[in-house]
């Protein structure tokens, strides 16, 4: 099958293209225009349409035990995931794996990473991902508050043991990368410690958050995992926590490090309420630290639910639950907290959070190092993405939104002074080219010959949100799955995994460890391919060479 997409406005920053041209798809791959005069089996007139590679979301809590607990906790919340505006037939459907895949595809996203899977729950996460249609998926496995890693550090076993454990965990859980959540803080909470910063010491283990981050950063790098260690820092949400983020950035030294949902660390203590945006300081630090990447975790107003493996933070936030219910889970390694929350435009704090996220987007100058997320659903459901694109691309839209916010909140931010508008190329960089590079997915995120034919066509128009809300056409692996913003064809994608080599001695060691500590076989968390009810459910991603 040879498809020619004619006269599209091709926005492909990885290949430095921003021009009207044709795009050729042969089966599941993008190809160069045939030189032999071969005729297309199908020609699509894409005049007035913008062509980008399929979008890639690097941090969105879409599957797994914690997400599912949130679903079951909030039967009344399912409508929050309906595509906005809310009065559509979709507003009555549940917030399911099926809807997740469909709604992402309709926005032109084709690859999504679930960033927080506790290793013991890997199979559950993979089963949910297998029921998430159209898009390709991946998980990040969480390490760093677990007794095994902390025990290795306590006994001074050094870098190679931690690297081997990273490799074992990735292979066992079929992960694309490793995340650490409130390093040390979650472990300390088990001992009833309720505040934990970067240089505090975890009781018994005698290690600091700094030491955990540096050890795992090194281990992930040495294991050849393309995606650098993905860090959820200490002190999320607290006034003055920008200093924690600055300290973490400085500690990264020269190795790559990814800081997740930086907006939630963008807070100073200035102003009438002792709560202000410190996004300018963070933006400056990120601009200077070329080894660091971040995603934003933009806040949008409305009902949502926060789902986090940072059980210490979620425990502290339980009093702010809206509606008043929550689950705090003391897990085998990280656990979780699920706390529903409603961000309100009239709230001073929420307005500062909204502004701080946009400031980060607008003040970090390199779109290859700032990633587009709402930390779904923590800052907002992913269905708000179209509105955020509009906020980034149009300063008049921002001004309209800002006019709704408390003026004293805006006064402790720099948002009103920012005039930058993202270009289509910058949007495509941030949501396509850069994520592919960050995750080591060489066949994604671009439209050059040889790329996987994941393509989104958007109808160019003044209403930017509408343009990104309903893609005109989406191809997944060359298969047309969306027309005029509606899924027309269901198929199932795969789950991507990186498999670093595992030392046989680490397997023996884990067997002994699980037997001694839990009286369980270490393979209870295994994810056999046969347990996943799709043909060829996994796809290998190469290690960094």
């Amino acid at each position, binding site marked *: 099958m040879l498809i020619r997409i004619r006269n599209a406005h091709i926005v492909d920053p990885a290949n430095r293209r921003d021009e009207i041209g044709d795009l050729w798809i042969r089966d599941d791959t993008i190809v160069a225009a045939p030189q032999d005069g071969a005729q297309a089996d199908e020609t699509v007139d894409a005049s007035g349409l913008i062509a980008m590679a399929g979008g890639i979301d690097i941090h969105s809590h879409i599957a797994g035990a914690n997400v599912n607990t949130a679903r079951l*906790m909030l*039967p009344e919340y399912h409508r929050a995931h309906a595509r906005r505006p809310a009065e559509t037939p979709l507003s009555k459907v549940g917030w399911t794996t099926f809807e997740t895949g469909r709604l992402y595809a309709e926005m032109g996203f084709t690859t999504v990473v679930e960033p927080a899977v506790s290793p*013991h729950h890997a199979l*559950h996460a993979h089963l949910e991902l297998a*029921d998430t249609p159209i898009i390709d998926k991946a998980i990040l496995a969480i390490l760093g508050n677990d007794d095994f890693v902390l025990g290795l550090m306590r006994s001074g076993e050094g870098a190679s043991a931690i690297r081997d454990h990273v490799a074992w965990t990735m292979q066992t859980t079929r992960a694309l990368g490793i995340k650490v959540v409130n390093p040390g803080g979650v472990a300390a909470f088990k001992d009833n410690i309720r505040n934990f910063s970067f240089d505090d010491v975890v009781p018994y283990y005698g290690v600091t958050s700094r030491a955990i981050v540096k050890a795992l950063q090194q281990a992930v790098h040495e294991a050849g995992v393309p995606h650098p260690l993905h860090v959820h820092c200490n002190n999320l949400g607290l006034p003055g926590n920008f200093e924690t983020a600055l300290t973490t950035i400085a500690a990264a030294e020269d190795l790559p490090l990814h800081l997740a949902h930086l907006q939630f660390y963008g807070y100073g203590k200035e102003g009438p309420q002792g709560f202000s945006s410190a996004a300018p300081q963070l933006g400056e630090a990120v601009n200077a630290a070329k080894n660091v990447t971040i995603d934003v975790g933009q806040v949008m107003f409305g009902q949502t639910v926060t789902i986090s493996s940072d059980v210490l933070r979620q425990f502290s936030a339980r009093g702010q639950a809206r509606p008043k219910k929550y689950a705090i889970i003391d897990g085998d390694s990280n656990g979780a907290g699920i706390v529903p929350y409603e961000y309100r435009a009239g709230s001073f704090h929420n307005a500062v959070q909204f502004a701080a996220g946009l400031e980060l987007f607008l003040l970090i100058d390199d779109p290859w190092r700032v990633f587009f997320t709402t930390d779904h659903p923590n800052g907002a459901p992913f269905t708000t993405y179209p509105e955020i694109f509009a906020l980034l691309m149009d300063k008049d839209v921002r001004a309209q939104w800002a006019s709704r916010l408390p003026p004293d909140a805006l006064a402790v931010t720099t948002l009103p002074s920012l005039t930058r508008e993202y270009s289509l190329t910058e949007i495509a960089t941030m949501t396509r080219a850069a994520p592919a590079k960050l995750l080591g997915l060489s066949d994604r995120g671009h439209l050059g010959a040889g790329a996987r034919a994941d393509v989104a066509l958007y109808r160019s128009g003044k209403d930017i949100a509408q343009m990104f809300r309903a893609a005109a056409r989406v191809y997944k692996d060359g298969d047309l799955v969306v027309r005029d913003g509606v899924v027309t064809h269901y198929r199932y994608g795969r789950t991507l995994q990186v498999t670093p080599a595992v030392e046989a001695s680490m397997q023996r060691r884990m067997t002994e460890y699980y037997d001694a500590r839990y009286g369980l076989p270490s393979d209870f968390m295994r994810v056999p391919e046969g347990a996943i*009810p799709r043909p060829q459910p996994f796809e290998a991603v190469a290690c960094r060479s």
Partner: protein
Amino acid sequence: MSLKDPVSAEAAASIDGAPASLDDATAAAARLLARSRQPLIAGLGADIEGARAVIALGQRVGGVIDHMHSAALLRDLDCLREAGIMLTTPGEARVRADVLLLVGDGLLQTWPSLIERLLAPPARPEGAEVKRRILWLAPRADATIPGFDRDLEVFAAGSSATLAATLAALRARVKGRPVTQTQLSLAALDALAGAVRGARFGVAVWTAASLGALEIEMLHGLVRDLNETTRFSTLPLSAPDNGAGVLAACGWMTGFPMRTGFGAGVPIHDPWRFDAERLVASGESDCVLWISAFGAAPPAWLSAVNVIALCERTTQFAKEPNVRIAIGRPGVDHDAVMHSSDTGTLVAATASARSGAPSVAHALERIGASLEDANAQPC
């Protein structure tokens, strides 16, 4: 995995008690479902693949799905949906709990490896062993946990409303508030209150099969209060017959727990309206697809309606089902994913005595394939 394995041609099936081929049985089942005013898929003793197939079939026929342990599952779930709760895992309880607060009866029945997994081994949160206290709010003073009699501090806390009152009194004493009449003496209550307040990481353990909603809610409140000063969590034991696994699959596939109906074209969850027993008693449902792959006995109320049974070969019914298909046991006859009470997670089990017996998912897939034919036939 089961759907990828071959199925034995001689799978045991029957129609109106007479032996039948699997094809004839699934075709007869499809005809019953197609003719039903309100198909009800109940029991749901199934592995994850079976649960997925149930939900898919439920959507297709506009049916209702309900699990045999929904009532207990929903008692626990109601607290998640209405209040703040703390939860932990069997592993954390085993490794870290220096105080275990066992509440009510039936723990061993719900979790047969309770003693071996949790009560017997010492806590070992960090380097050294920690001796744990095991407190039991038992129905009576002479209650026992068969197989475990050492170091068990038994408090006669009563059951039902009495237990709820005892828990309320304990919660009051934990906060230093006065109490009047209670089942336990003030001295005993204060000893208990001191024990739970003194925990470094305490865990309350119960099974919703033997507690009412009020007791469960009171327990969560007690644990909330304790966390103001120390660490305390809960381990509600998971229901048998893969109840927690089926609940999880319902959650991700429909957004709701079981007791969900698909008749309106979208899933609607209503714990009263879609209670299987009520639907049969009221005459709203005239056809039940009863699924029980783990050997649980069928309920008496099945006798009132047409029944398609996916169950073990030897299951006894008061009234012979219209269609019966003998299915394999997940994890024994075929590979399966199920919730494990030992880990608190979904776990892949390899068949221990692989056979050609169909799985729930197999049988439902065959019924689904026959549905188009059944729908094409005039009534």
